[in-house]
């Protein structure tokens, strides 16, 4: 597997990974603000957000229809849709693409759910690797507290209830998140995660993230062309049809 830089794409992909409640979404949002402020071409994509696939996923989750295999496949479908329809064209057009979760989320979750690791990785092997992956490493107790403070009601799959780890959703969530953390840590070296201490202050983390991005990427390359307003579109041209039609102009 290669990164977008190794595949000579003009764009670059930055991904954030981490447990629920690690603060990764906050951090990538702040990074996005900073990049946009510099007038760079930025696109943000979230895990499990494809318009086409989302309806099926939420039905499957709400009605608890998902097994480890279909859970894995439906998220892969969602990812493929975003990847082929948005990420690839944008990366070819020289965008900085920011992803809140990438294939590593699937690698961790699906394997914890019992899917064979080689199978999961094989499915996602159409995707290139991020150019930078930030892993927000928090103490399990800290991230658990963040989630449990803000959103006291845990959803079935989010809490890993399908794994029957415990009849108590909170206990189940704790065990599930612990197993995810193990998977992430095991991938850390293999996929060159940049580990950020998520127990630090928001500002401390963000300045480190910005500094690392500036060091690794030539940000000036991603400036959007000025003026920002789009050029006027040419007048629509009637498409030529193979069969002759009445209003066609005479051929010279």
């Amino acid at each position, binding site marked *: 597997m290669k990164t977008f830089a190794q595949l000579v794409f003009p764009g670059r992909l930055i991904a954030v990974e981490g447990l629920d409640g690690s603060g990764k979404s906050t951090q990538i949002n702040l990074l996005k603000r900073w990049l946009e402020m510099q007038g760079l071409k930025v696109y943000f994509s979230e895990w499990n957000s494809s318009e086409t696939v989302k309806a099926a996923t939420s039905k499957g989750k709400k009605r608890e*229809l998902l097994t480890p*295999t279909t859970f894995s496949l439906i998220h892969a479908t969602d990812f493929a849709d975003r990847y082929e*329809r948005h990420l690839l064209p944008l990366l070819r057009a020289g965008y900085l693409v920011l992803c809140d979760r990438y294939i590593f989320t699937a690698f961790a979750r699906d394997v914890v759910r019992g899917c064979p690791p080689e199978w999961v990785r094989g499915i996602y092997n159409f995707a290139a690797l991020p150019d930078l992956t930030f892993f927000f490493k928090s103490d399990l107790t800290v991230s658990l507290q963040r989630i449990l403070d803000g959103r006291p009601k845990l959803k079935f799959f989010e809490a890993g209830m399908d794994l029957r780890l415990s009849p108590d959703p909170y206990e189940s969530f704790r065990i599930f998140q612990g197993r995810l953390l193990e998977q992430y840590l095991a991938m850390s070296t293999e996929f060159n995660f940049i580990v950020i201490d998520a127990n630090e202050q928001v500002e401390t983390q963000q300045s480190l993230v910005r500094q690392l991005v500036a060091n690794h990427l030539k940000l000036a390359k991603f400036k959007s062309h000025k003026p920002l307003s789009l050029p006027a579109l040419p007048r629509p041209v009637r498409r030529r049809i193979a069969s002759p039609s009445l209003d066609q102009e005479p051929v010279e």
Partner: protein
Amino acid sequence: MKKSLNHQIVVPRRTERRFYGQGIPRIHLDDLAGKLIVIEGADGSGRSTQIARLVEWLECSGHATVQVGLKRSTLVSEELELAQQGNILSHTTLSLFYATDFADQLENAIIPALKAGFIVLADRYIYTLMARDLVRGLEQPWLKNLYGIALEPDGVFYLNVPPAELVQRSLAKYAALDYWESGMDLGLSRDMFDSFLEFQRLMQDAFKRLQTVYGFEILDGDRPPDEVFEELKRRIAGLLAGD
């Protein structure tokens, strides 16, 4: 005394069951006592006619049956249909969407029915899905891994009908050619008739390629339905007896 009806019903012989690859977590293959029989072929190859007759024959012979097919899952069939109408999905996405549909039916229809000792008749299986994906340019090793979740059926019969005959059958039935069965999304030709022939030819090539790996039986589907049925019956009876 009048000769009584024959009450002797063939009890299908148990055979060793396997997944094609990694399989599905937490499934015990030894529990799956039923039989999985797959009928493959293009639209218009006579699949549904044959399946209807097989169901009747099998049930009269004392076997419980269940039918499954593509795009029939509770989980994603509606969404898949909707997405296809808009024709907005790229190849990998469409492929994974179908794989999700397949997996849902495998786990929620096929496997429970096999556990209960039913004969499952599948109106197409992973081979059609893989053949379409191969024609659309996806890699065979990727597909092999993806469908490593599938159970190896007890019998797979591919009804082979030449594309020119498929055109005739489709037009006689619907007076039109189907957009997807014509592979119109591939841009082979802007002419639907030409595209249909070319796409079906490519599909047959893909099936032949898959046949060398998955070893299913190719039956001549370009014959009267009665003849095809007799052959299917003969082969399936043999399969149930464990020949």
